[in-house]
């Protein structure tokens, strides 16, 4: 007879699920980690990682047939959907969703989730990020402040391995970093010019990135090799993923059981005890239904799917599911709006080039509505980018054909600067996801219906982002500075957040300050669903810190007999 009882169940194996499994097993709990997709073994299953473009039949480009098979993903040609990574994204046919408003949902249904496919930019929220809602009367106040999370940022930074510089900026708190990647000479020059031009109020800094820049034999990880093939899985373990970091640590305790191909159908709720007693899963292959019991559940299925699991649970008590008593479950969907930025030519520096493929770039931290900077919108934005010499893949107009064209393109072109902006989206009750009444997935479960869009504040901000980037480029002597923009729909930032927000009051929030569901305190939601506001910085590091913090609290509460 299989033992179906554990101390804790972790739903999901991505960035936050991996952290939950690591923390809980290291604290001695017997943990079952459930993952709806296939297993992916570190190194062994990174089947594309030693390939070069010429090893792919279409040299990495997606075929029309591949695009047609993934109509939603196809809207984002390039990253993330191409011949290199396409198999790593969830299949829209078996797992559809309904778009009341256009929504791009990038799902990675396999062990490791999107930790294998993320952009790895790792920033702390700043103290203002936790206070802005209250000060501005937007949505609800965060139930925690920066000081509550700061030690946990340090804790996760040290283990995950975040490379970066201590830049001393109040808008972007420093952390416990490994040595940063190198800014190239041209980026350094532009950084100095920008700092001077804006009197120390705008900065180009080296991106803070979840890559280890020193070997870590104790974790079985080798330092980043600057191959820039991260989205194929890294056989060195150079970047943080479940497979490279948290999963081995959890397995080492002997306390972890990992069960792939396990779709959580619902959390089982005992309405008398107001506790969840376990989960019911569907085996994705056999379609068999199995019940697992546990004292606590960590819900780390990703922002929308964690809300989806809650919506499917305790429906005999609440029509809209567990956590819906506040009326906020599934609401307040946020993302970072992007798909816009700026490009420019950088004169000179033609005696300089670089060696290696740095898997990250520079960052221009938020400056709007910061200090003396005041705008006609709330909050701010940052830009990621880099200065590079053009590759062969440049505009070949005017370069002719034949030997001259070939010679020209076989050499690097001029230096160019390109940036992409990421802007904060305000929490708005009207932005929501809910269960479809008509569409089900391949396992007969109701799918999500998306009804979320950017609104006035974001639209104003986008205009400013385009103006500002051109102004900054012009002011530091770049040439042909231009803003670019293409269609952004919610989800495309792949930073979805907010569907089960934390708060101080069960009437207006789904989770309390320890990420516990108000209506079931032995359920912790610590992925992006918990976010009360979105900041403008990449959010994964915050999920890691909140997960470690909640896991610590959960174990203490178990010891105290409170759960």
């Amino acid at each position, binding site marked *: 007879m299989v033992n179906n009882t554990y101390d804790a169940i972790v739903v999901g194996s991505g960035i936050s699920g991996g952290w939950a499994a690591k923390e809980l097993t290291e604290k001695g709990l017997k943990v079952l980690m459930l993952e709806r997709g296939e297993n992916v073994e570190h190194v062994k299953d990174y089947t594309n990682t030693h390939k070069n473009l010429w090893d792919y039949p*279409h040299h990495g480009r997606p075929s029309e047939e591949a695009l047609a098979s993934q109509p939603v993903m196809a809207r984002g040609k390039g990253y993330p959907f191409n011949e290199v990574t396409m198999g790593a994204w969830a299949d829209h046919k078996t797992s559809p969703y309904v778009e009341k408003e256009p929504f791009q949902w990038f799902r990675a249904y396999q062990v490791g989730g999107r930790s294998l496919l993320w952009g790895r930019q790792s920033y702390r929220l700043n103290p203002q990020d936790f206070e802005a809602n209250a000060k501005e009367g937007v949505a609800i106040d965060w139930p925690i402040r920066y000081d509550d999370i700061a030690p946990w940022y340090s804790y996760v930074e040290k283990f995950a391995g975040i490379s970066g510089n201590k830049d001393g900026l109040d808008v972007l708190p420093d952390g416990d970093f490994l040595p940063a990647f190198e800014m190239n000479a041209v980026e350094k020059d532009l950084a100095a010019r920008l700092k001077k031009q804006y009197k120390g109020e705008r900065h180009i800094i080296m991106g803070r990135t979840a890559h280890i820049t020193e070997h870590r034999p104790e974790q079985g990880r080798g330092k980043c090799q600057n191959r820039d093939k991260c989205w194929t899985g890294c056989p060195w373990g150079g970047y943080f993923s479940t497979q490279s970091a948290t999963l081995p640590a959890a397995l080492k305790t002997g306390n972890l059981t990992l069960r792939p191909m396990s779709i959580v159908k619902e959390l089982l709720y005992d309405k008398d005890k107001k506790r969840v007693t376990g989960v019911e899963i569907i085996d994705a292959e056999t379609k068999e239904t199995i019940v697992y019991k546990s004292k606590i559940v960590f819900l780390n299925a990703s922002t929308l799917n964690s809300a989806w699991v809650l919506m499917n649970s305790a429906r005999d008590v609440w029509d809209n599911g567990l956590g819906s008593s506040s009326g906020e479950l599934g609401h307040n969907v946020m993302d970072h709006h992007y798909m816009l930025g700026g490009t420019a030519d950088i004169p000179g520096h033609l005696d300089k080039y670089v060696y290696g493929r740095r898997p990250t770039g520079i960052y221009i931290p938020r400056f709007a509505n910061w200090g003396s900077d005041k705008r006609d919108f709330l909050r701010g934005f940052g830009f990621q980018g880099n200065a590079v010499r053009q590759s062969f893949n440049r505009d070949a*107009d005017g370069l002719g*054909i034949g030997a001259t064209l070939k010679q020209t393109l076989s050499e690097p072109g001029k230096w160019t600067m390109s940036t992409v902006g990421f802007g904060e989206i305000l929490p708005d009750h009207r932005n929501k996801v809910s269960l479809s009444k008509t569409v089900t997935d391949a396992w007969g479960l109701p799918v999500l219906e998306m009804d979320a869009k950017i609104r006035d504040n974001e639209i104003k901000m986008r205009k400013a982002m385009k103006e500002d980037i051109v102004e900054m480029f012009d002011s530091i002597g770049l040439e042909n500075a231009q803003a670019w923009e293409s269609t952004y729909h919610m989800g495309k930032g792949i930073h979805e957040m907010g569907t089960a927000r934390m708060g101080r009051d069960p009437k207006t929030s789904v989770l309390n300050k320890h990420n516990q569901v108000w209506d079931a305190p032995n359920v912790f939601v610590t992925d992006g669903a918990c976010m009360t506001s979105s900041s403008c910085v990449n959010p994964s590091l915050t999920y890691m810190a909140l997960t470690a913090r909640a896991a610590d609290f959960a174990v203490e509460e178990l010891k105290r007999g409170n759960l």
Partner: protein
Amino acid sequence: MANSSSTMDRRTLLKLIAASTGAGLINAPALAVWQEQPDLLPVNKAGFDDATVALITELCEVVMPRTDTPGAKDAGVPPFFIGMVRECYDEQQQQLFEAGFADIESRSKTLYGKPFATLATVQKSDLITAIDVEAMAFNKGEDTQWDGAGFTGQPHYFTLMKQLIIFGFFSSKVGGTQVLRHSDVPGGYYGIPYNEGDKAWSTVWPW
């Protein structure tokens, strides 16, 4: 892919092992997540007649010729180009390519009385250079010999052809390693001096 019955058996077995040892992984057999993609369509199944295949082959070489380094034919660009036209372009773009091949052939016959593939190297080069210049003018909205009729919203056909030849050439193994510089595992990232004539590095993403 493993057949489903053996997959199931192994899964059941692993579950039993996990149950009997009381530890470890309940381990589903890994299917390939980063899937092998289907092979490129071979030339003989692309539906181009011999004359068109010959035209494409010479077109690729005239745009990226062998010099002191290998050229398009050495790098396998023509079959790549043909497969890509069929598999990575939508129907209207494919028709634009086809109309372009016909246009090149027709101009060759008008100017030189011969199919493009049989022209002398300098004739091929002159004709394609003229079309390259024309493409830029067309894309700027000027009136050109190619009038784009039936292809509203599309660039000049040669723009698509030139881009595909350039991409196919420099993303090929020959182009990436013999015409560009390639470092499989750089190990680090740092600044280096650039002297005129030094080659560019190969790239690892298709954009």
